[in-house]
């Protein structure tokens, strides 16, 4: 570790030389995404609105057994961060393999690829947040002082997504099943996260194999995305301060994921050139 720390620093400083490449790749991703569509970047706004419509019809009208006021806003607070997370993660996982042509022929710090994928999705997410704010206006939900925590919550989510992305992108270079398995896991993850439902509808306690389990706590402890969604909700939808213990735990978890994921990535990235 003593020898790897200075090398770690050198890597980070090299990475900073390539900030222009990162921004160029982000711009490329966005340009390519909208190049051949009529609505262009408006899709970043239309897409969440359509999703909100579908979920509101299904869970607000057809299956309306949960009484959540201002359901569209409640839903958007969950589904927008989730979309950001799942598209950024799937993109990051594929980023090395999809750019194999480049990785095999040119040297640059490989971490540039997952980073730029996550950042391109971040831009998309920020655009989509406009829809959320518009809906808050329509439903007359006031913005409170706690909304200033929004950038911090977003930052924590980026850190967590990057950490997991680094780890899985590396794995995907060596085992291509990673991305296939992650598709299924992301679907399960979506349902296990209180996105379109309130965590209150889950039983508070359940005895499994003689152990009394606090389901509400477990959902948040085992699932950083659930904690993040709860944070978005509390500062925007409820307009209250977040529960600080959860908040800091999520932050620490995310940083640990990022450091571990990045070390794992840099440990194996020199081999990408001949493995992809």
């Amino acid at each position, binding site marked *: 570790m003593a020898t790897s720390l200075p090398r770690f620093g050198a890597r980070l400083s090299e990475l900073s030389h390539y900030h*222009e*490449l990162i921004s160029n790749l982000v711009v490329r991703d966005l340009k390519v995404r909208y190049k051949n569509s009529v609505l262009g970047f408006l899709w970043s706004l239309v897409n969440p609105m359509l999703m909100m419509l579908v979920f509101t019809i299904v869970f607000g009208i057809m299956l309306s057994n949960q009484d959540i006021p201002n359901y569209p806003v409640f839903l958007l607070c969950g589904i927008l961060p989730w979309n950001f997370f799942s598209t950024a993660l799937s993109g990051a996982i594929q980023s090395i393999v999809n750019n194999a*042509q*480049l990785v095999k*022929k*040119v*040297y640059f710090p490989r971490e540039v690829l997952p980073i730029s994928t996550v950042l391109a999705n971040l831009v998309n997410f920020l655009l989509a947040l406009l829809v959320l704010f518009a809906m808050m206006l329509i439903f007359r939900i006031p913005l409170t002082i706690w909304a200033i925590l929004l950038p911090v919550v977003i930052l924590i989510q980026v850190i967590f997504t990057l950490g997991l992305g680094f780890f899985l992108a590396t794995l995907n270079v060596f085992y291509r*099943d990673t991305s296939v398995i992650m598709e299924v896991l992301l679907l399960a993850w979506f349902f296990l996260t209180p996105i379109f439902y309130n965590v209150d509808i889950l039983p508070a306690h359940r005895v499994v194999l003689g152990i009394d389990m606090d389901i509400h706590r477990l959902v948040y402890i085992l699932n950083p995305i659930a904690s993040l969604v709860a944070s978005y909700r509390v500062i925007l939808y409820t307009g209250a301060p977040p529960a600080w213990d959860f908040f800091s735990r999520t932050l620490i978890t995310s940083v640990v994921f990022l450091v571990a994921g990045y070390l794992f990535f840099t440990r194996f990235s020199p*081999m990408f050139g001949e493995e992809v």
Partner: protein
Amino acid sequence: MTVSHVGASKGSPIIEFDTVSKRYLLQPGRPRSFQELLVSAFRSSPPTKEQDLHDLEREFWALRNVSFSIQPGETIGLIGANGSGKSTILKLIARIVQPTSGIIGVHGRVSALLELGAGFHPDLTGRENIFLNGSILGLSRTEMRRHLAEIVDFAELERFIDMPVKHYSSGMYMRLGFAIAIHTQPDILLVDEVLAVGDESFQIRCLDAIRRLKARNKTILIVSHSLKQLTDLCDRGIWLEGSQVQELGPMAGVVRRYLGSVADEQAQYLLEENAHTAEELAEQNSTTVGGQSETLAPEVSEPAPRRWGRGPITIEHVQMYADDPATRRGIATWSFRPMQPVTIEIAYQCKSAVVEPIFSLLIHKMDGHYLWASNTLDHPIEPIPGPGRGTLRVEVAGLALTAGRYYLSAAVYPEPDPPFWRTPSDFHEWLYEFQVISPTEVHGDIVMPGRWEHHPL
């Protein structure tokens, strides 16, 4: 296992390989999917000796204990058979692959022409791709903006620069890739076979651009099959053989000895081949109509310069001369005008008397198309009386070729060997290149001087 990339210090080598080895696993023994991983976990018996042996067969040492150092400003040519490790050296310098053991020091910014246009996005325009590619090579937007005009100009894409590159022809694509790489101010330029792309005029300009970089004291490493090109461009050569450095020295000498060894190998191969081709030949003869058949004697083959053959006569030297009408003396050159009178000279050495020596000269286009030949079977010469040297001169009244680049091959046979001519004593195949320059005679393959007359009524 270290690759260091730090700033250069004066007087020290810019590239250093210290006992570098690189091993590739041909069919990696490790599981490639989770399924295989699971299966291998249950099959936990220790690998048997047979399996170990199997694993050894699967690995391939692209380089073994290779050491050399290159000074700033040198131009180095890498030669060797396919799979001898040339490209691996370039990939190691470019940091695309890691050495299995040994130390590599590279002190400067590397621009690698391993594949032209790697990293272009088809949906982006040429201009957008210039900036993207520049930043992949580590240049800032402002630096790229400074070179934008030169790049566009060099690639001859003024009218197409705002068009998505997916609409480009492959030639345009390559030109843009080359233009970007060469204008990114590298300290070290790595060129892998890419000089063989594009039309001939672009190739000439690529070579000029490389010469300009060379004049600016940049370090250049070139892998090319054109030995002529390498001899022209490079100061020193590295000859790789069996994953090791066979020779490192002045380019011309390395090329000469490399060709010599290729000829020896070829002779050995022919000797073995001849032992059992007699029957086949007879069979082939019966299937051949008029001495030529499409399968046996393809008109177009892939140009690959090589020297081969075995016998008493060897060709020492081949030179073309442009006949200067003023002095009535030839000037040694490889550059001509259409219909210019030309003399081609062959210098030979002979170990014994040869009754009916057959010398032959052939001209091919760069794409391998067979254009012309003349030989001493059709134009007989006197026998060679005994051991010694001599020269042959062929006077060509007019070089009836359009503008472009051509290969000249020379061969000598100890006796007539129709129809296949498989037993040359010495064959310099595709070894010489010459060009014909003309602003007007550019269409088709041959020149038949014509005069236009116009009679309006």
